[in-house]
C-alpha cells in the first residue's frame, strides 16, 4: 500500500518513501529505500560520496523521478498534485538557484510571484533583513560571495513559507561567520515547527541541531535513530562502522 493510498492526508507524515529505487543508466543510486518523516522533525542524513543522499533529497524535492517504488509528500503522490506539493516545499541547494544577472531583491520577488506569494516585495525585504543582506539588496547576485549566496539561497527558499525544507550540503564552502549565521537560521526554522531534512558531510554541524540522524551508504539507509544521546565521538565510530560494514 503506497502512502498515497493509505487514506486521507495524514497531517503527521510530511515525506515518505516506499521501496524507492533510482538508477542512473545502470548505476543504482537508491536501493529500495523506505522512509517516513514526521512533521517537525529535523532529520540529518550523513554518508560518503555516492551514498545516494543527494539523490534521495532531490527525489523528495520532486526534481528526480523514481525509477521504481514511490514517494509521497504531505500524504499525496507528487504525480497527482505537483503544483500544490511544490508550493509547500523548499530546496536549499549548493548553487543557490539564483540568477546572477538580477539583483537579490529581484530574484526573491521573481520567485515570490512564481509561488503566488501575497506581497512578494514586502516579504522579500523582511527575509533579506532576516539573513543579514539588507544592505546589498540591489546588487547583482553575481557580485555576492559564497556565504552571501548561501544566505540569499535560504531567503529564496523561504519566500513561500514551505512546510518542508530540504538542504543539500549547506555548510560547504562557508566561512565561520556564515556557518554561524546558517546554524542560527536552521535553529529558527526548527523552532517554527517546519520539517527539515538536511544532507551533509560535516558530522558536528548535523549533530547539534537534529532530532533524528540517518547514515546512508551504497544507496541504502544503514542507520536511522533519534539524535538524543549521540555524541560526536560515538557518531564518528558509528559512521565508520556503518560505512566499512556496507563496503565489506
Amino acid at each position, binding site marked *: 500500500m503506497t502512502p498515497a493510498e493509505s487514506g486521507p492526508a495524514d497531517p503527521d507524515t510530511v515525506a515518505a518513501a516506499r521501496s524507492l529505487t533510482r538508477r542512473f*543508466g*545502470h548505476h543504482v543510486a537508491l536501493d529500495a529505500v523506505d522512509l517516513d518523516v514526521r512533521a517537525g522533525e529535523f532529520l540529518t542524513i550523513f554518508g*560518503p560520496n555516492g551514498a545516494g543522499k543527494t539523490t534521495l533529497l532531490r527525489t523528495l524535492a520532486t526534481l528526480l523521478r523514481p525509477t521504481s517504488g514511490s514517494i509521497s509528500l504531505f500524504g499525496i503522490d507528487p504525480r497527482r498534485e505537483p503544483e500544490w506539493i511544490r508550493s509547500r516545499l523548499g530546496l536549499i541547494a549548493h548553487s543557490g538557484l539564483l540568477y546572477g544577472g538580477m539583483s537579490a531583491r529581484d530574484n526573491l520577488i521573481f520567485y515570490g510571484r512564481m509561488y503566488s506569494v501575497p506581497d512578494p516585495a514586502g516579504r522579500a525585504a523582511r527575509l533579506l533583513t532576516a539573513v543579514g543582506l539588507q544592505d546589498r539588496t540591489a546588487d547583482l547576485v553575481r557580485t555576492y560571495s559564497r556565504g552571501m549566496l548561501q544566505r540569499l539561497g535560504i531567503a529564496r527558499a523561504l519566500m513561500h513559507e514551505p512546510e518542508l525544507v530540504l538542504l543539500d550540503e549547506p555548510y560547504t564552502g562557508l566561512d565561520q561567520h556564515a556557518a554561524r549565521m546558517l546554524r542560527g537560521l536552521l535553529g529558527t526554522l526548527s523552532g517554527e515547527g517546519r520539517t527539515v531534512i538536511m544532507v551533509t558531510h560535516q558530522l558536528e554541524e548535523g549533530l547539534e541541531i537534529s532530532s533524528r540522524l540517518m547514515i546512508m551508504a551504497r544507496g541504502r539507509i544503514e542507520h536511522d535513530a533519534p539524535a538524543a544521546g549521540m555524541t560526536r565521538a560515538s557518531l564518528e565510530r558509528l*559512521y565508520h562502522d556503518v*560505512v566499512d560494514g556496507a563496503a565489506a
Partner: protein
Amino acid sequence: MSLPGPARADRPGWLAAAQMLLPLIAGGMAIATLYGAFFYAAREKTMGDVQRIFYFHAPAGIMCFLAFFVTFLASIAYLRTRRRIWDIVGHSSVEAGMLLTSIVLLTGPFWARPVWGTWWTWEARLVWTLVLWMIYAGYLLLRRYTDDPDQQARFAAVMGIVGFLDVPIVYYSVHWWRGHHPLVLKVSGGGGLEPTMRIVFLGGIITYLFLYMALMALRVPLGRMEDDLRRLEASSRARARGRRDMARVT
C-alpha cells in the same frame, strides 16, 4: 552455413527463426526483383533501360517513410511506458530508415545523370529526401552526443515525434517551392504504370519491406544485448568500488 548474428544462447524460437528467414526472403525477393527489373518489366518509352533503377529507388523511398513512422510510434510508446524496448525499436528503425534513405539518395543521381544530364537537381522529391535524411541524421547525432542513457532515450523520443510531424510539412513545402518531379506521374501509386512494371514495383516494395524487417530482427536484439552488457559492466564496477572504498569523515 551459419548466419552471422546475435548469440544463440537465449533467443526465443520465433526470433531465431525470424533472424534466419527474413534475410533469406529479402535476399530471394531481391534476386527476383532484379530479374524482373531487367528481364520482365517493359522497357520505358522515353528513358530506356536507365529507368529500371526506379524499381530500387522508389520503393526504398516508401519504406524509409514507414521506418520513420515506426520510430514515431515507438517514441510515443516510450514516453508513455518508459520501457527500454521502445527506445531500442525507435533507434533501430531510424538506423534502418537512414539506410533506406541513403539508398534513395544514392540511386537518384545514377538515374538523374543519364536522363537529365546532371547528378543532382534541386527538384522536389530529391530535396525532400535530402531534408528527411538530415532530420534523422540529426536524430542519430543527438543520441550520440547525449551521454546519460535515460536522457538520450527521452530526447530521442521527442526528436522522433517532432521530426515525423515535420515530414508532411516538408513534403508539401518542397513541392510548392519547386514545382513537380517530372517522373511523379509515373511513380504515383502505380497509376501510370504498365502491368509488368507494376508487378516489379510491387516486388521492389516487398523486397525492401523484408529487408527492413530483417534489419530490425537483427538490430533490436543487438540493442538489448548492448543494454545487458552495460548493466553488467556497471554492476561489476560498483562491486569493485565497494571493495576499495574506505569511509571518509570530515
